């Protein structure tokens, strides 16, 4: 009998390397538990202990408005960012206050505060059989209103507005916390059998509405909160790939890899609070994608539990000449096709050097042309961003009140730019840069970029400005603006 005939006669043998296998072989059976690392997450399971229930980020970090003395007016108001997690923490921001008042024409005397956490919630749509079976499986679950509300939304302006002033027309009925892939398989199987709708939930930072419950959904809705599936299942240093469970938060992932001298390098603005599974499901992009790639470039394999079985590529090679590639279907599926449970990612060595930089241009148009040319020569550093004049001014306004010495230096710099170089403050713009790599390569790249910038009237404006720009990225996320409110 030829090899082929033997294969054909044995239906159990899978000959297609990339076939989606409904009955995929259990990797949990062959995985040596020794190679798995438990990770203590920065975010607790009861996420409201650390994070805001009705806004972005940490509870202890936010913009506040208080009055110096007497009633709150535009004059007496003090604007601050509290908490010491970020570089502008606990300092007064007088320029920012003025910017806000001017830009939005605000009267702080009319400050509106958010509604408190509701005391009653809509009764859940219950499927007793399903809940009973979940209990028997020993899977953590909750049907408390608070837990349901917290996981009913993402972080769009609409979501925040509704939390502060309205009510959601539909919130989920049950939350479950699976601990591993096998748990998810059980949950999805049961949900399918009992006609229960499943919405996967990672960090809850979605801005695409993918975790919003459909208004008219009559079936019970169960949220699969993946946050308790956050182990590093294995690491293969030789091939530079790592396998994590999908519920690991970005900050936990990078922290653990950093201990081993490694990085994935995927840094979406939400990376403190968003999860790996979420990145995959939403086809996320990170700010250092020029070097590390977007999530679709970083993912080698994905395991996704669907109601028809587990979808995964049956081979660990990073690339095979066979298709279609099912990873591409999973990426960006927004949780509509299944629950992502395990992800194999490419890792790199931590860069020997990280360098910030910034360039200023007299006009936005110059900046665009400069960045075009940098792109043509494929000289993009890990990150490069062009910021228009509005944002430039906004960024400058977030500086704290300078002390005497600093104000002199700043004044001199400003004088040099505006008087000698004749930049117009109302028209100029800035590009911020991050370089990562070997020292020599970074230095060379910086030099080449500066030469191009010069052609378009650009001036290097120092590392501090660049670094500030990137660090503020995480602070800016705390501002979710709408007409009726400003701060939360």
């Amino acid at each position, binding site marked *: 009998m030829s090899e082929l005939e033997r294969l054909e006669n044995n239906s159990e043998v899978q000959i297609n390397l990339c076939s989606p296998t409904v009955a995929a072989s259990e*990797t949990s059976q*062959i*995985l040596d538990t*020794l*190679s798995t690392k438990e990770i203590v997450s920065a975010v607790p399971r009861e996420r409201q202990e650390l994070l805001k229930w009705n806004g972005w980020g940490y509870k202890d970090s936010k913009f506040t408005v208080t009055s110096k003395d007497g009633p709150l007016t535009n004059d007496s108001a003090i604007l601050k960012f509290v908490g010491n997690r970020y570089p502008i923490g606990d300092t007064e921001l007088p320029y920012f206050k003025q910017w806000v008042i001017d830009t939005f024409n605000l009267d702080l005397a009319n400050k509106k505060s958010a509604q408190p956490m509701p005391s009653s919630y809509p009764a859940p749509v219950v499927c007793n059989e399903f809940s009973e079976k979940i209990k028997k499986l020993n899977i953590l679950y909750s049907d408390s209103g608070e837990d349901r509300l917290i996981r009913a939304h993402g972080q769009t302006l609409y979501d925040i507005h509704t939390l502060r002033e309205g009510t959601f027309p539909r919130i989920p009925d049950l939350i479950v916390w699976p601990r591993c892939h096998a748990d998810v398989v059980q949950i999805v199987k049961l949900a399918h059998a009992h006609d229960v709708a499943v919405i996967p939930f990672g960090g809850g930072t979605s801005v695409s509405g993918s975790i919003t419950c459909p208004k008219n959904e009559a079936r019970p809705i169960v949220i699969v909160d993946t946050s308790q599936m956050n182990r590093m299942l294995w690491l293969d240093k030789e091939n530079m790939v790592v396998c994590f469970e999908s519920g690991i938060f970005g900050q936990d992932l990078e922290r653990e890899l950093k*201990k081993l001298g490694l990085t994935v390098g995927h840094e979406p603005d939400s990376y403190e609070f968003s999860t790996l599974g979420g990145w995959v499901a939403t086809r996320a992009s990170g700010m250092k994608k020029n070097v590390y790639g977007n999530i679709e470039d970083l993912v080698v394999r994905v395991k996704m539990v669907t109601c028809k079985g587990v979808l995964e590529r*049956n081979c660990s090679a990073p690339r095979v000449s066979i298709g279609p590639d099912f990873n591409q279907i999973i990426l960006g599926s927004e949780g509509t096709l299944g629950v992502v449970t395990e992800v194999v990612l490419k890792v790199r060595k931590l860069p020997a050097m990280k360098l910030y930089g910034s360039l200023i241009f007299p006009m936005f148009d110059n900046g665009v042309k400069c960045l075009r040319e940098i792109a043509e020569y494929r000289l993009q550093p890990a990150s490069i961003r062009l910021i228009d004049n509005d944002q430039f001014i906004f960024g400058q306004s977030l500086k704290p009140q300078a002390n005497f010495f600093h104000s002199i230096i700043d004044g001199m710099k400003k004088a040099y730019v505006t008087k000698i170089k004749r930049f117009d403050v109302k028209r100029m713009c800035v590009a911020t840069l991050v370089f990562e790599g070997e020292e020599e390569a970074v230095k060379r790249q910086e030099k080449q970029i500066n030469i191009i910038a010069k052609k378009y009237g650009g001036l290097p404006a120092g590392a501090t400005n660049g670094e500030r720009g990137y660090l503020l990225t995480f602070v800016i996320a705390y501002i979710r603006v709408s007409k009726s409110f400003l701060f939360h």
Partner: protein
Amino acid sequence: MARAQTDTKSKSMKGFHNLLEPDRLPCMTKVWQPQIPNRKDNYLSPEQLKLNVLESPRIVRLIEELSGNDKSKKQELRRAVQDMLNEIGLTRSMPVIRWAGICLNKILKKICTAVYVNEESILRVKKCIGSQPVLYLPSHRSYADFVLMSYICFAYDLEIPGIAAGMDFLSMVGVGSLLRKTGAFFMRRSFASDKLYWHVFKEYMRSLVNVYHTGVEFFIEGTRSRSFKALTPKLGLLSMALEPLFMGEVVDITIIPIGVAYDKPLEEQLFVYEMLGVPKPKESTMALFKALKILDINHGSMYVNFGEPISARDYFGLSLNRFEHAQLPVHVQQLTKRELDLVNKLGRHVISHQQNLIVLTVFNVASLYINYRLFMDKPTSLQQLADGVMLLSNHLKALGALVSVEYTNIKSKILDALDVHKNILQLSVDGKITLMKPVIANVQTVNVTKLKGHNLSTNTLRNSVPAFSLQIYCNPCLRWLIQPAFVLLVVKSMKEKSFSSEDIQDNFFRLRKLFSVEFVLDSELENEDYNFSLQYLMKSQILSQRYEFNQKESEIITIFLSTVAPFLCCYLHVIETIIEVFKDTEFTEKDLLVKAQQRVENGLNSRIDHVHPYCLSLDSISIALSSFHLNKILTKTKR
């Protein structure tokens, strides 16, 4: 056994040659250009092999985990792993190998009449190897196996393999390093508790198979079989060695079962005392020197027979599913339950092959016949013994065994064998062959708590040791005889006039299951074995088509039945002990060993029926216990 039947034609002693003959005696100063079992572009030195383990992803990962990012702890652990590797790892010294070989040439000539090697079988092996990892898996009946295999490899220009040895040798001054330099690597006996050691050893074993070129030798029985019966395979080393195949790191692994038989193993009497429960002297260099007096005794011949190489890949066939392991990096995986079952199956297959390869000596066959005569309480003359040996040899050969009995000069061959075993049997002045009464000094007062079993009296020992020794020489033959004997026993026990062939088969299966641990019988082969045994008995007209005994063959029938007797009696005593002493109460294995031996001793002294000195065997009593547990007659709990 059916497989053995097909081999029958090729089974003869034709390919065997005596290595001690002057023209074959290995020259220890020859140019050493051996055949390499697993050729490589670059050959690792033993030190590089250790380094390979130290830097393997598993060990690096484990050190990282255990050190918890503490740099100095990491250094400390790395050193600990290096120490472990130095304790485990083999080295190689050609001068030591040559000198040891010269000594061995001298010693073997002094203590043996011959070392027979199946040259055809070793040439067949040499033809098959060269590009795959090779596992040599010999049967284990004596410490001599350790040196004999390397000696033969040297003699036939085959690279000397790495040999897994126990740590006991390391505590013997000089012996440990001697073995190490001739290719031995060492493992601790129990290391389940020490995670780091376990992984280091496992990685070393994997590397030996994966990246080293010499081939690996180990004993899958795990220890020397004191009873000369095969032992249930231990799967630890075998599964470590086969892991690279399952993980797809190597294309195939060649497995060579080897049968090593001794006319009289050096440890014969030690084994007898050990199975009776008399404490075994600890291995020490002094003890070794004392043992040198055994070098004055003639130990007869040794027989080494290499089996047909088994391709593990072919053996597993389609059940080898490498897709399963293609999804994860190799170093983060382990074998599945299904694969461990496959390893178990292969282990049993190898044990079965080893038994086929073991040569049965004149004395094995003679013991069987004498045992039967003693069982019948009949004296035996030399002529009767010669006839008996001929009769039994014919049956054993027909059943598939490899028997070294030639039909010319049979009497003088028997006399030679009796001379080698004069501590067990003697030819009395009246021409009868009788058991010796050994001189045993009063057993020194021993610490009773240290005994494994009952404190047997000197008198009991004096009366039992020869008969016990005789039985262990019968044991290698039982591989061939026991299942036809089961059939005969079942037929004999059928009281009703009318019984169906299914009744016989069912009872056979039940009996076979009860003794499946004792004789390492595979439950998957029960039908095959039953049909083979039944057909053999019918073909040789011992049993008629209607299951009647042929009266003309009554002697061979009784011989067959007598082979089961000692084991049946032993199990009977164990059962009665449990019923009488431990009814409705819990007991430990040791409780049972003591009480059962006590019961057998009383039985022997009062000369009741259904008792045989072999019933004192702690080995069989404890096998009986595990068989009862396996058959769900007893339940086992852990304290």
